[in-house]
C-alpha cells in the first residue's frame, strides 16, 4: 500500500499536466469544428476534395464530417494517440525509474518481494490511466455536447472511450514488459513510444493499402476504430479477446522477468 501511494504521489504532477493537455485538445479540436461548420461550407465536401491518402492520415475515413459525432470520431484518433503515449510511457517509466534514478538499492532491500513491488506499481499506473480516461471522457461529453445541436453523442463517446481504455491498458503493459525485459531499462520509455508510433503508422498504411489488410491484427490501432465502433457498431468481441490475452501475457512477462532480473545498479 505504501508503494502504491508513493507512486500515485510521484506521478500526480505529470498526470495533472496530461489531463490539462487532453482537455485542451478536446476544446481546441471542437473549436475548429465550430469554425469550419459555421463557414457554411459542408465539411464533407471539404474533406472529399482532399487526396485519399490525406483523408486517411487525418482519420476521416467513412465518417460523416457534417455531424458533430463524425467530427469527434476524427478527433478521437488524436485523443487515442495522446492517451496511449501517456500509458506506454507511464508503464515503462514506473518500472524503469528505480534503476534509472538508482533508487533500487533503497526500494529493493526493503522487506517486500519484487512481485509485490511491481504489482503495486502497476496498480498505481492503472489508477493514473483510469483517471486520464475519465477526464478525457468528461471533457468530451461536456465540450462535444456544446456543439451537438440536439444530436445525441454521449453513447458514441462512451463506446470510443471504452475502446481507448482497453488500448491504454494494452500499451501500459507493453511499456512495463519492455522495462522488465531490457537489461538497461533507461531507454524503455522511448522504445515503448517507438513501438507505439510504428504500430500507428502501420495502421495508417493498412488504410492506404488494402492488400495488407491481414496485418490489422498486428496493430492495436486497428482494433477499435471510431468508424467501426460508433453508430451502434460496438466493440468487436474478437479484438476485445485479443487485447485481453495480450494484456495478461504482457503483465505475466513483466512479473516473471522482473523477478528474475539482475537489477542494473
Amino acid at each position, binding site marked *: 500500500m505504501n508503494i502504491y501511494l*508513493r507512486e500515485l504521489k510521484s506521478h500526480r504532477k505529470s498526470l495533472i499536466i496530461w489531463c490539462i493537455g487532453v482537455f485542451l485538445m478536446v476544446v481546441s479540436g471542437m473549436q475548429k469544428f465550430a469554425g469550419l461548420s459555421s463557414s457554411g461550407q459542408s465539411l464533407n465536401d471539404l474533406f472529399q476534395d482532399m487526396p485519399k491518402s490525406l483523408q486517411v492520415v487525418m482519420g476521416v475515413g467513412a465518417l460523416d464530417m457534417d455531424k458533430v459525432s463524425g467530427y469527434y470520431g476524427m478527433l478521437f484518433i488524436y485523443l487515442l494517440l495522446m492517451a496511449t503515449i501517456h500509458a506506454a510511457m507511464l508503464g515503462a517509466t514506473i518500472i524503469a525509474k528505480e534503476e534509472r534514478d538508482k533508487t533500487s538499492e533503497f526500494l529493493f532491500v526493503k522487506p517486500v518481494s519484487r512481485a509485490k513491488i511491481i504489482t503495486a506499481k502497476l496498480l498505481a499506473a492503472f489508477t493514473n490511466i483510469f483517471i486520464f480516461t475519465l477526464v478525457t471522457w468528461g471533457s468530451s461529453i461536456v465540450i462535444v455536447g456544446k456543439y451537438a445541436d440536439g444530436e445525441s453523442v454521449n453513447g458514441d463517446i462512451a463506446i470510443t472511450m471504452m475502446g481507448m481504455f482497453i488500448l491504454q491498458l494494452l500499451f501500459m503493459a507493453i511499456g512495463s514488459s519492455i522495462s522488465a525485459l531490457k537489461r538497461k531499462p533507461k531507454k524503455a520509455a522511448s522504445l515503448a513510444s517507438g513501438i507505439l508510433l510504428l504500430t500507428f503508422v502501420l495502421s495508417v498504411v493498412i488504410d492506404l493499402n488494402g492488400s495488407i489488410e491481414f496485418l490489422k491484427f498486428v496493430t492495436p490501432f486497428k482494433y477499435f476504430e471510431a468508424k467501426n465502433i460508433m453508430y451502434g457498431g460496438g466493440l468487436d468481441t474478437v479484438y476485445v479477446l485479443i487485447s485481453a490475452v495480450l494484456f495478461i501475457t504482457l503483465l505475466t512477462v513483466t512479473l516473471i522477468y522482473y523477478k528474475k532480473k539482475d537489477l542494473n545498479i
Partner: protein
Amino acid sequence: MNVIEIKNLTKTYGKARGITDINFNVEEGEIFGFIGPNGAGKSTTIRTLLSLIYPTSGSATIFGKDCIKFAPEIKKEIGYLPSEVFYYDNMKVKDLLKYSASFYKKDCSKRIKELADIMDLDLNKKIDDLSLGNKKKVGIVQGLLHEPKLIILDEPTSGLDPLMQQKFFELLEEENKKGATILFSSHILSEVQRLCNRVAIIKEGKIVTVEKISTLKENNYKKFKVETKVPLDQNYFQIDGVSNLTGKGNVTSFLFRGDINAVLRKVAEIEITNLWIEEPDLEEIFLHYYEKEAK
C-alpha cells in the same frame, strides 16, 4: 552461530567483472571487515547477498535462511547502506525516512529522531538540496532506523567528514554492543583496522584470505628501515622472508617475516647510521598480500 554463510558464491557478468567461488562466514555479534581495492567484487558480493542480483552459482544464507528464497523475510532484519546513496529527489528527508520506516512493522519515529540528532541531520530539508555528505547521513539513518540485527555497509565513510566518521563509528560500536552483527566493506584499511574483529580480503573477485585482524598484525611481520652512510646495493637485503624492498637514497626499507637473527646478521655486517624495527600497519601487510598474488 553464523549470521551470514557464503558458499562457493560465483557471479559472472559476461567476461569482465564478477566474483568467483567466494566462501566466508560472518558470526553473530562480530564486526566483519570486507576489504579490497575498487572493482574487486565487494559490492557484487553484497548485492548478491541482498538479492539485488542473482548468483551464477553457489549460495548464501542469512540468519540460516537462503538469501534469495526468503529475501523479503530476511530483509526485515537487515539495514543496508549503499556506497552511493540516491533517493527520490523531490522528497523531504523526513518524508523519505517515514517512507522507509513504513516498510517495517514497527514505530521508528523515535529512533529516527535520535539518529538524526546524533548525525546532526536536518529532517526538514529537501533531498535535492543536500550535499553528498548529508545524503550519506540520510543513508545512515535510513539503514539503522529499524534497529536491524544485521547491518551491511558498503564503503560507508566516503563523503563524511572526520568528525562525522567518528560519530558514525561510535554509533556502529553501540549498535554492535546491543547485539547487531556488522558487515563492513571498505578499501580504507585504517577504518577496518579500527573497527573490525575479522576481515576478508578480496582481490579480483576472489577471497585472498580471511583472518582475525589481530592475527594479521601478529603475523610476525616486522618493518625494517635501515639508514646507511652510502646507498646500499639494492639487493643486499634480498634474502628469504623479505618483501616490499625499497631503497631511497641512504634509506632502505622492507618487510620481514621469519627468523629475525638472519636479518640482524646482515645488518651487523654493514655500517649503519640508524635503524628502525616496527610493527607494520595493515596497509603494508595488505599490499604485501597483493604483490605476492601478482607474482
